[in-house]
């Protein structure tokens, strides 16, 4: 093989650049500090569903709520985790209004950490803060 050294260096540089998303935050230390989620005192003991589900799937739940309300005028949500408990399907009133009155400490911290920018609050108003 001709120019082995050049080719090998080229491949290494390419791989380094190509995998930036996987190692940059480790090297820069941005990922070291896990955000501390603050639960507002209004929140009580339980969310709409159990904590693990909410942590992983809250955006799916909100999406379902959105379609139900906008297309089916169906505003009542019965919790799977807590049968019999009925919630109003509303981000502003139920999530932010009744429990998570501290959006900047609760929602924003985590979203910033994982580098996502949900567009919810371009339209839905923030109450409580």
């Amino acid at each position: 093989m001709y120019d082995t050294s050049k080719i090998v260096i080229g491949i290494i540089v390419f791989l380094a650049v190509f995998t930036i998303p996987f190692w940059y935050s480790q090297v820069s230390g941005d990922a070291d500090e896990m955000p501390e989620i603050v639960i507002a005192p209004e929140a009580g003991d339980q969310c709409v569903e159990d904590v693990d589900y909410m942590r992983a799937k809250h955006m799916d739940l909100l999406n379902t709520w959105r379609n139900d309300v906008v297309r089916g005028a169906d505003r009542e949500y019965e919790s799977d985790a807590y049968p019999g408990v009925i919630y109003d399907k509303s981000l502003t009133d139920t999530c932010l209004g009744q429990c998570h009155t501290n959006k900047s400490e609760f929602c924003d911290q985590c979203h910033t950490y994982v580098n996502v920018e949900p567009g919810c609050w371009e339209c839905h108003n923030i109450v409580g803060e």
Partner: protein
Amino acid sequence: MEVTRREFIKLAGLASAGAVVTASSGALLTGCSPLVGMEDESLNDTNMGMITIPSRCEEGCTGCIDACNKMHNVPKHDNKDHEIKWIWETEFPHAFTEYMENEILKERMEHVPFLVMCNHCSNPACVRVCPTQATFRRKDGMVLMDYHRCIGCRFCVAACPYGARSFNFKDPKKGLEDPVPNPNFPTRTKGVVEKCNFCSERDIHGSELPYCVEACANKKGGVEASALIFGDLDNPEFKERIEKIQKDEKLIPLRRKEIAGTQPKVYYLV
């Protein structure tokens, strides 16, 4: 049959390319249709519509318009090109252009004010043209919007014969005070279309009325005297009520631009 090495590789390549294309297009298609199977089962088959009686309107009164604008966070921009309108007042010639060749009518009606809004048509042109199903006709006869899905293409604005749709050229929050007048109702965002929603966020099939109707009824001292009447056009009781008004006050029902074939559901008793 003998297959050469070259032919075998060619065939294998083709087969795998075909498999990838089929699999990915299948995934794409299912990914594109999240609304399949989304039925509005919780709704009854009704046909919600509005009856307006212009002769009952008081001169200078904007109660209905103000109530709607406030409760739906409708922004007010200085530039008229950026205007957002849900319900507004216009003069007869603008609402009923087709009658303007009628000289006698023209003279008599030239400056008579009329309230106009989305007609929640039974055959809505806007719904037909919307490429994302952001605007749709619900089982209860209301033509609504899912602002989340609107991509701002403005096909609906062009299709609507009534000019009932407004496009947010600017961030609506710039035309509203801070905090917004009604924090429980979302604002819209720059780049989406909006219009009257017949107060779909309220319990309009139950105990509540649209805000404009409520404001008018409150001002007039009861729904019976209101210039705006809202209800299920297929409901016999409602029909009877409207027929009685027509008979008592000697009025006939007009609809805007019937020739467009959209079957509007806002009636004007004149």
